[in-house]
């Protein structure tokens, strides 16, 4: 406890750095996955390839990727850009198959009906297909968010500041409180983001939660 109280400033700093590395890949993976999934769904062969490719991508061990990326990108090994790029790749590996499924889950007859009412193709995608894929997209995003928050910690091993650094440092200096606070804060951050996404989903997709009742 005394260690925590004496190091509140450090904990806050690490938490913010962690969030700063987790949020961009989560947002990027989500935003990029949708057009990729849409494109993949329109070409059968591409969809199969992408789903398989995404699985393989996720199997690449994270630590080597963090080390190789600076060489490819020309960034310093401790730059948080590496983390963001690597985690966006992992995020995409999770999000593309999930977005592809989400878009495919939208009923074809609803889409045809929208076309028949006079929706132009992009308007139909933006205001019919995307919102209807919303609940499944949110489910995918939750997995990406939690996975990304936990993967950010790996950067700590390389000396990129994040909550992960707390347990690396705690192990080296044998400070149990530091290790524990790193683990607890990482988990708490993941849970908090997950809750925010669920709440955001409820606000944006109110229709998905009003399936009760019924008329005659």
């Amino acid at each position: 406890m005394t260690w925590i109280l004496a190091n509140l400033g450090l904990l806050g700093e690490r938490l913010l750095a962690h969030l700063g590395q987790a949020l961009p890949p989560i947002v990027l993976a989500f935003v990029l996955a949708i057009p990729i999934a849409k494109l993949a769904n329109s070409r059968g062969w591409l969809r199969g390839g992408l789903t398989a490719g995404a699985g393989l991508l996720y199997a690449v061990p994270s630590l080597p990727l963090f080390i190789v990326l600076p060489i490819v990108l020309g960034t310093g090994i401790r730059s948080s850009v590496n983390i963001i790029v690597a985690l966006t790749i992992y995020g995409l590996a999770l999000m593309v198959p999930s977005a592809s499924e989400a878009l495919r889950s939208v009923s074809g007859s609803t889409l045809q009906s929208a076309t028949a009412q006079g929706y132009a193709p992009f308007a139909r995608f933006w205001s019919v297909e995307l919102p209807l894929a919303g609940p499944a997209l949110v489910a995918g995003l939750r997995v990406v968010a939690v996975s990304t928050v936990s993967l950010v910690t790996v950067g700590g091993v390389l000396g990129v500041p994040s909550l992960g650094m707390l347990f690396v440092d705690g192990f080296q200096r044998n400070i149990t409180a530091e290790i524990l606070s790193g683990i607890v804060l990482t988990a708490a951050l993941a849970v908090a983001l997950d809750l925010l996404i669920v709440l955001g989903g409820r606000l944006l997709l109110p229709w998905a939660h009003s399936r009760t009742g019924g008329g005659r």
Partner: protein
Amino acid sequence: MIRFDHVGKTYPDGTTAVEDFSLTVDSHASVVLVGTSGSGKTTLMRMVNRMVDPTSGRVLIDDEDVAAMDPVKLRRRIGYVMQASGLLPHRTVAENVATVPHLEGVSRRRSRSRALALLEMVGLDHKLGDRYPSQLSGGQQQRVGVARALAADPNILLMDEPFGAVDPIVRAELQKELLRLQSELGKTILFVTHDIDEAFLLGEKVVILKPGGVVAQEGTPSQILADPADDFVETFVGSGRGKRALHLEEVDGRQVVVDESGRPTGVLHAAPESRS
């Protein structure tokens, strides 16, 4: 007026949905295309609003080739009702009805008040306007589908088996309601169904289709019943099976109508008033 001028549809894989079909639907008339699956009836209907483009021939609306029209604009001025309503599940009932006015940029308030009035017109409480479609019964959803199709006050209504997915009692209600609406509004209606009874009830003119969009017979319900063109039509309308070959028997001084198998099906009254 809608005119099909020798239209055909062959898909890239070589299957032919419609071979060579011609038909004129007069303005303010209701014409029913009736046929089994594979008769190309839905394909033909979708040629009118360019959901399907014919591979040969033309479809004309008021003598204008639809192929030359912008499909999105064309669809907004044609009402379309489909089976299982096709309502947007993420929009409230009122928003669904206001779909086309909304797309056309009519203000939210004006399109909403129009939507609520339309709900009343199709026999629904306007309080249902703020519900989501999933909170309505199947019959109510179909009514909303009809209200939505009427929202932009189109001259033409396309109805693709709109009452196919509801139970018989609700279907009869909806059919009656459509007849009432049509007598008030006088739209040009092209209706597709596989149910010959529905076709005879709703169509001033009925077109019986064989597979491939081949017209087996075209005429008023009485013409078709009185003089079926061939065995196919006879079987299709059921007169060949004796279902419609009725005769009278007198029971206790009243005229009872009996079908060919001897089953009493009704009592004969004076001639009913003809429908307006």
